[in-house]
């Protein structure tokens, strides 16, 4: 397994009768950015908690940084950075104190903790707020501070559970940019997300989870190639029932999907397909040709049913 920071085989997590993670195999290599994608309840967070050594696996093999979480929990956690889904910053403390007190949990001397805090606040662009309390900070600032806190022990691997959920677009892009910088510095990133653009932006490799299992694995590009076509044509017809047109479109492209408001044609070449649609004189109200995205893969694999 070489330089595998995460090595899981048949990893299982059960809560009573409920199986949250149902036998997954994962390998994450040093320096890579690895993503867990999946709808709510897919088992992403349970997996992350096991990797973070705060949740003992129910079954299977799990090695983190070459160690056994059951035995070496504190030692492993000392080399991880964790950015949880919900910020758990100390709202009574100042921005800097949040980093310095947390650094002390890792046995970092006070002076060094202060030095790192200043350096990290610079990195996440919060230096001017170092002495203000956390409570009034915006969501994006709090998230950046949480990321800075996860970096305070100079971790070998950073775990990010939905790092940009709930942030506005500007804040999301800033977080992505900072995470990208970390990745360039050689920090191994492991993240969960249900934002496809986030996965495409950040992840070298990812797995799609559904119902506690891994349903697909690969780079974003490879997954699109494997599970979707190069392009997608979105057609809207002026009718109550789009499915009436499905038959008339038969034979165009590899796959066709009827949605309540439009029909998707999965094709190799969007323009060729559009020509064919026009040749059949179907007169769609609108035609949109776009490249396939990870979102198409995701919806194809995990379905369009809403999971709350």
């Amino acid at each position: 397994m070489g330089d595998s920071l995460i090595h899981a085989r048949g990893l299982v997590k059960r809560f009573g009768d409920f199986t949250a993670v149902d036998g997954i195999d994962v390998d994450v290599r040093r320096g890579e950015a690895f993503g867990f994608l999946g709808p709510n309840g897919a088992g992403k967070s349970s997996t992350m908690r096991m990797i973070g050594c705060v949740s003992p696996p129910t079954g299977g093999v799990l090695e983190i940084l070459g160690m056994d979480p059951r035995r070496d929990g504190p030692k492993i956690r000392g080399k991880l950075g964790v950015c949880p889904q919900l910020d758990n910053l100390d709202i009574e403390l100042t921005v800097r104190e949040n980093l310095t007190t947390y650094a002390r949990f890792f046995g970092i001397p006070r002076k060094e903790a202060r030095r790192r805090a200043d350096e990290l606040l610079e990195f996440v662009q919060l230096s001017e707020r170092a002495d203000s309390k956390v409570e009034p900070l915006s969501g994006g600032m709090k998230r950046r501070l949480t990321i800075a806190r996860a970096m305070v022990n100079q971790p070998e691997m950073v775990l990010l559970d939905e790092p940009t959920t709930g942030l506005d677009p500007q804040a999301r892009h800033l977080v992505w940019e900072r995470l990208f910088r970390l990745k360039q510095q050689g920090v191994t990133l492991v993240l969960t997300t249900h934002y496809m653009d986030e996965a495409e932006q950040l992840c070298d490799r990812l797995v799609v989870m559904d119902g506690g299992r891994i349903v697909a694995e690969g780079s974003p590009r490879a997954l699109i190639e494997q599970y979707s076509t190069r392009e997608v044509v979105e057609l809207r017809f002026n009718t109550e029932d789009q499915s009436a047109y499905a038959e008339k479109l038969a034979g165009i492209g590899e796959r066709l999907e009827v949605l309540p408001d439009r029909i998707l044609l999965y094709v190799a070449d969007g323009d060729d397909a559009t020509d064919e649609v026009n040749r059949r004189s179907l007169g769609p109200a609108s035609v949109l040709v776009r490249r396939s995205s990870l979102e198409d893969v995701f919806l194809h694999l995990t379905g369009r049913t809403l999971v709350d």
Partner: protein
Amino acid sequence: MTPALSVLEYHLVNYRRTWRSSALSTLVMPLLTLLGFGVGVGAYVRGGVDGVPYIDWIVPGLIASTAMQAAFGEATWPVLSYFEWLKVYFAQAAAPLRVADIVGGHLAFMLFRVLLTAAAFLVVAAAFGTLHSWWAPMTLVVALLVGLASAAPTMAYAASITSDSYLIILMRFAVLPMSLFSGVFFPVESLPLLLRWVAYVFPLWHGVELSRDAMLGLDPGALGLVHVGALLAWCVAGWWLAHARFRRRLVI
């Protein structure tokens, strides 16, 4: 440095931000209590109790009772909010701390608060001229023991609930009866036998008796060992319970 100390340090840094708001009440509460009960009620208890003036008799009990209440205050709402609202414990659990470090570090901070509160009481009591024995500072050691015996099981309770309405229940059915029936204001011998068991079973009475012996310079004798034993039993059982409850919440 042991990891538990870094947790204590965290709580102290937090306290540095809020100590001012609690400092005044730490001093004013003993003052009001001593004026009300010691001087006010004491004026009606002319014969004193067990041969000593009433104010001298209740001060050691009040110190033990104050220690219990300070422990209760620290082990209830803060613990509940660190689980439910602020998620502080979960952040700590992600660091290389063990459950014992998280529980131990917070308990150490609670004992620090107990010590401050009891010491403030002792200082105010000295101003009322109620200190007569060189053993009086031992009341602070007893206060720490009472503090741990109260804080640890309370912490376990607070870690088992998700709403603060359960804390009100604890206040009404444990803290209040314990405060009233533990020989703080009158000897437990005045109580009907059934209520005396409140004193015998809960930790406070044992602390009150030890505290009084220290303050009045009396030899607690073999009964002293029973009191210390009872308090230690609460400490050990409380620690064990708190550790188990925290583990259940933090390692799932």
